[in-house]
């Protein structure tokens, strides 16, 4: 039931992948409900969602390991969903790598090429090139059990890419890595995608990861598409309360709008919204310490500091305002915060969002 706010792809580039009204149920359990989205050529799209959102199921349907209950998928204008997985020009990097334990690293990488009956010379040279690309040439003769998790992940990547698929699917490939390695791999994956130029569809539950790597993010919730937009757009202009809360931190203000003024407890600001009840998302970093630079339209208020959480460069303060309203405010770190502070925010930063209903 969600409307889709989508970055329009230029008319001259037809989408690589066209997912039309795909739904999937396991018995009575509806995991995906009416998903439609498109993946452009050469784009890095992340499917983001919590567990239970259906993101992995959607990926598996694209790969061919599950069949959609209804709907269709087209790649390059032709039906994809009628093909078995081994006939799709799609390759997958699995969450736990799924490397073949009885084959060496080189044999793993060359597996798809051997199946395609390519001449031995070509297999060897392409395997070497792929291993080079992921910086694992030294391990060509090793067995998967002898290399580390991060290294296995690279091999899984090479094994998929060496086949030159039109689309690469990645199923939470970084989730098993520790934080530092993960950050490093995020950067490497992104630059690899740029270098290779094919479309990546990346599944993750980590919203920071999604923002770092993607050209666009498709946020899934309970089997439906909540919003699909570029990271900046989805962060700065979330469409729903869920999106605002899931990606980054936010304050959700519910208030009444009358005659162009929104009122939420002791705060009020100008808004273009129609009369009625409204929900607004206000990011903690958009609430600043009042220092007189806010301008006349800025909403000023006073609040008491209840708690502070140190995050390094910034701190997250929990503020109690008049009337008991609690807000999170992000401010530059300083040694001592005391008592009451004067804060301000600009009305433009109070983004109206739709409420997210629960779903059966």
């Amino acid at each position: 039931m969600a409307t889709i706010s989508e970055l329009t792809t230029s008319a001259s580039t037809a989408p690589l992948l066209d997912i039309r009204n795909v739904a999937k149920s396991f018995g009575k359990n509806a995991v995906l409900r009416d998903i439609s989205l498109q993946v452009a050529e050469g784009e890095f799209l992340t499917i983001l969602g919590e567990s239970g959102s259906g993101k992995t199921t959607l990926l598996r349907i694209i790969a061919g390991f599950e069949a959609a209950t209804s709907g269709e998928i087209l790649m390059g204008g032709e039906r994809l969903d009628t093909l078995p997985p081994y006939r799709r020009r799609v390759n997958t990097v699995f969450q736990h790598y799924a490397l073949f334990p009885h084959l060496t690293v080189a044999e793993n990488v060359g597996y798809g090429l051997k199946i395609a009956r390519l001449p031995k010379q070509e297999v060897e040279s392409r395997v070497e090139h792929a291993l080079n690309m992921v910086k694992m040439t030294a391990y060509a003769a090793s067995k998967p059990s002898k290399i580390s998790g991060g290294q296995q992940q690279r091999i899984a990547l090479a094994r998929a890419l060496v086949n030159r698929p039109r689309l690469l699917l990645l199923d939470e490939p970084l989730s098993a890595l520790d934080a530092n390695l993960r950050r490093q791999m995020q950067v490497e994956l992104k630059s690899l995608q740029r270098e290779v130029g094919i479309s990546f569809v990346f599944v993750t539950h980590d919203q920071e990861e999604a923002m770092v790597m993607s050209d666009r993010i498709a946020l899934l919730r309970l089997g439906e598409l909540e919003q699909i937009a570029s990271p900046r757009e989805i962060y700065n202009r979330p469409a729903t309360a869920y999106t605002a809360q899931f990606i980054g931190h936010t304050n959700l203000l519910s208030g009444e709008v009358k005659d162009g003024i929104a009122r939420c407890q002791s705060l009020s600001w100008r808004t273009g919204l129609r009369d009625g009840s409204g929900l607004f998302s206000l990011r903690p970093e958009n609430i600043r310490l009042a220092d007189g630079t806010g301008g006349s339209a800025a909403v000023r208020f006073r609040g008491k500091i209840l708690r502070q959480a140190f995050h390094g460069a910034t701190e997250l303060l929990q503020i109690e305002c008049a009337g008991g309203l609690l807000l999170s405010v992000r401010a530059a770190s300083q040694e001592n915060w005391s008592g009451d502070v004067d804060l301000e925010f600009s009305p433009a930063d109070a983004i109206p969002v739709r409420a997210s209903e629960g779903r059966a």
Partner: protein
Amino acid sequence: MKAGERNVPTSRWLPWHAIVVFGFLYLPIVTLIVYSFNGSGVGGFPPRDLTLNWYRILFADEAIWTSVLNSLLVAFAAMAISLIFGIPAALALDRANFPGKTLFRRLVLLPLILPGIITGLSLLMLFQAGEVKLSLLTIILGHGTALISVATTEVFAGLQKLDRAQEEASLDLGANYWQTFWHVTLPNLRLSIIGAALLIFTLSMDEIAVSFFLIGRDNTLPLEIWGRLRRGITPEINAISTIIFVFSLAAIVTWYRLRAKAETEVVL
């Protein structure tokens, strides 16, 4: 083949093959049961004159029931020996390091795969050298020795699944090694031990190869049946076999129930 279907070869013949193999495995058993009610004895087709006669004759047959009692005695005693020596053997293999460990492991597990007669006649030589008269006792010793490997294998597998952290927690809380063994290790091995006990019992009741050489005056059930078979087939044998089958079935169903129940009790 479309997407999402079973992504492994689903040749049509697989289920049929399965049916044929199961048929092959159960044909003798079914025949046995059916013909134990056959009035005109073994053989002949189709079976007719359904009767409980053979069971009646069976129940009056004293020699058979004596041998059953002997077998039960042997089975329980062998069970005791196998467990008493097999459980420590499993613990030793899992946790201790000592010179000759590999040889020990191979020796303990050897009777599992060695044809029974070799174990049987080598023990016969031992008893002969020690001038021990053949009797139920020698059979008990034979079964016990041969079946230690079963106890060891089952308990070893159970030890592998054991969460070491539980034992460490017990030690951390002040219990010593013996108390930990008694209160933590052993209860966790309960399932493996019961499984081993059931298996040992069944194998002992059916054991022929080792018993063949170590038999004294008293027969075990298999040897009693064996003796009669040499003299000729009687449908009585069908009857006793059917009874054995029913008991085996009951044993294995019980075993599965116990295991299923225990698995739901495991707290992660």
